[in-house]
């Protein structure tokens, strides 16, 4: 890491001493996730999520394209993450940072490979026209744990999004305008949510939902993606210190509790937004 972005010795030592006493520097408990705030925009598919001070914004848009010839009935689901220098001095404009690559790959795995969105349901005319759904994720503020925040933003945006209705006449697709026919939500099978952990002291100490300083000082990390049916979608552990099996099992148990809480939060936020629109 660039020397300017590394925390000072005082901060590192303080963080370790506090963790060894079971305390976190922002006063949270070790298993506490920060306050999550979900705000939907006026347009469908437009959402801003705040995880503590980390702020991520997601927007879903649609396009009709020709499918791949070897997969004529599959639509497309694409993710585009952008981390602007506004979020943190470690991001440079136009330059792809490591964090950006990790987050976008995790999102693809969590939402596309886990078949959360039914891509077969995105077919209009087999071999000719399919929906291409694009999720744009923008990180506005980096205060730690962009991964979890971006995942919540992406899934909330996909739930919130509505695609227009269409009619087919002799191979011609007519998109019905929004004032004529209500748009339709996407078919989403389950809600995968990512929970990230950070490890210190050779695996002895663990925190859930690391903030910025904890992320800069950590020795290892792991992200577990589950849905509310306790189905494991992903375990992502790229490098860092090795972990024991019982630690990983413990983390999955903690993650499943957090995931059900967060799923309920997303559902409540969606319901409230629906009420507002009536």
């Amino acid at each position, binding site marked *: 890491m660039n*020397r*300017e972005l*590394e*925390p*000072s*010795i*005082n*901060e*590192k*030592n*303080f963080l370790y*001493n*506090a963790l060894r*006493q079971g*305390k*976190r*520097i*922002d*006063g949270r408990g070790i298993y506490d996730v920060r306050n999550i705030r979900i705000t939907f925009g006026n347009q469908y598919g437009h959402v801003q999520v705040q995880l503590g001070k980390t702020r991520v914004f997601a927007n879903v848009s649609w396009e009709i394209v020709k499918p791949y010839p070897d997969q004529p009935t599959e639509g497309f689901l694409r993710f585009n993450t952008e981390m602007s220098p506004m979020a943190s001095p470690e991001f440079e404009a136009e330059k792809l940072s490591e964090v950006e690559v990790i987050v976008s790959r995790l999102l693809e795995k969590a939402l596309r490979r886990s078949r959360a969105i039914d891509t077969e349901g995105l077919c209009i005319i087999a071999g000719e026209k399919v929906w291409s759904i694009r999720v744009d994720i923008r990180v506005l503020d980096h205060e730690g744990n962009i991964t979890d925040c971006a995942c919540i933003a992406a899934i909330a945006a996909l739930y919130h999004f509505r695609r227009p209705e269409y009619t087919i006449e002799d191979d011609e697709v007519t998109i019905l305008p929004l004032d004529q026919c209500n748009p339709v939500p996407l078919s989403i099978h389950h809600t995968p949510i990512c929970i990230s952990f950070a490890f210190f002291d050779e695996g002895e100490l663990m925190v859930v939902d690391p903030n910025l300083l904890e992320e800069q000082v950590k020795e290892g990390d792991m992200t577990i993606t589950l849905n509310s049916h306790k189905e494991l979608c992903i375990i992502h552990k790229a490098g860092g210190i090795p972990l024991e099996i019982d630690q990983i099992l413990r983390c999955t148990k903690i993650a499943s509790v957090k995931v059900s809480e967060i799923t309920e939060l997303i559902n409540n936020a969606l319901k409230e937004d629906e009420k507002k629109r009536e």
Partner: protein
Amino acid sequence: MSETTEFQPYAILPGETISLDKYKNDKDVIKIGPGLLHEKQQVTAIKAGTLKNHNNQKWWIDSSQRRYVPSLNEHVIGKIIAKTQDYFRVDIGSAHSALLSTLAFEGATKRNKPNLEIGALVYARVSLANKDMEPELECISATTGKANGFGELKDGFLIKCSLGLCRSLLNPNTPILTALGEHFAFETAVGMNGRVWINTPDISNTILLSNAIKNSEFLSAKEIKQMVKELVKQSEDDMEL
């Protein structure tokens, strides 16, 4: 003496012009401060914030940003990022890193240089600030040549906050520090570059103080007293557990 009207501070955006005519007497000299630009017979705001004045003679805009622009004689907290024979390179959060000469410490000679590690924190004074050059720091007082509080900050914890909060913390009667001082013993160093260093012998107290200071930025004096009371009560309850 012409009549001067009473001035109330108000929020202002960049580009707005201010007419100071109704606030001044004919022979007053008006001084324009930060955030205001005087050109072509007009005074224009160039920052977003609150327009304030002192005695209708000094005018400035109180704004709060997070990125620091070095300014002469300000006290800042820096982090050592590199060292050479003659100087340390220090990150103070500005666009360029600053230079701190190894001789700019109390009692330092060519043989007896300070031994600061990379990653250490220092409290220093900006001795050169020019938008075209790298800023320079000194760890001795300009007048006496003694340390006077400057130098390495050992242990403790560092928090980053907005520049406006740091400016208000430098006021000796600031509500948050006096309220906290009634219940806790602590030492603190406030850098004008948006960094505050806090040290107490007890880790949970340091955590409590750093979070209290961070949260106090937009609270009124009464709310601050209330928040500190609740925090103290909570920490006493935790101790009993």
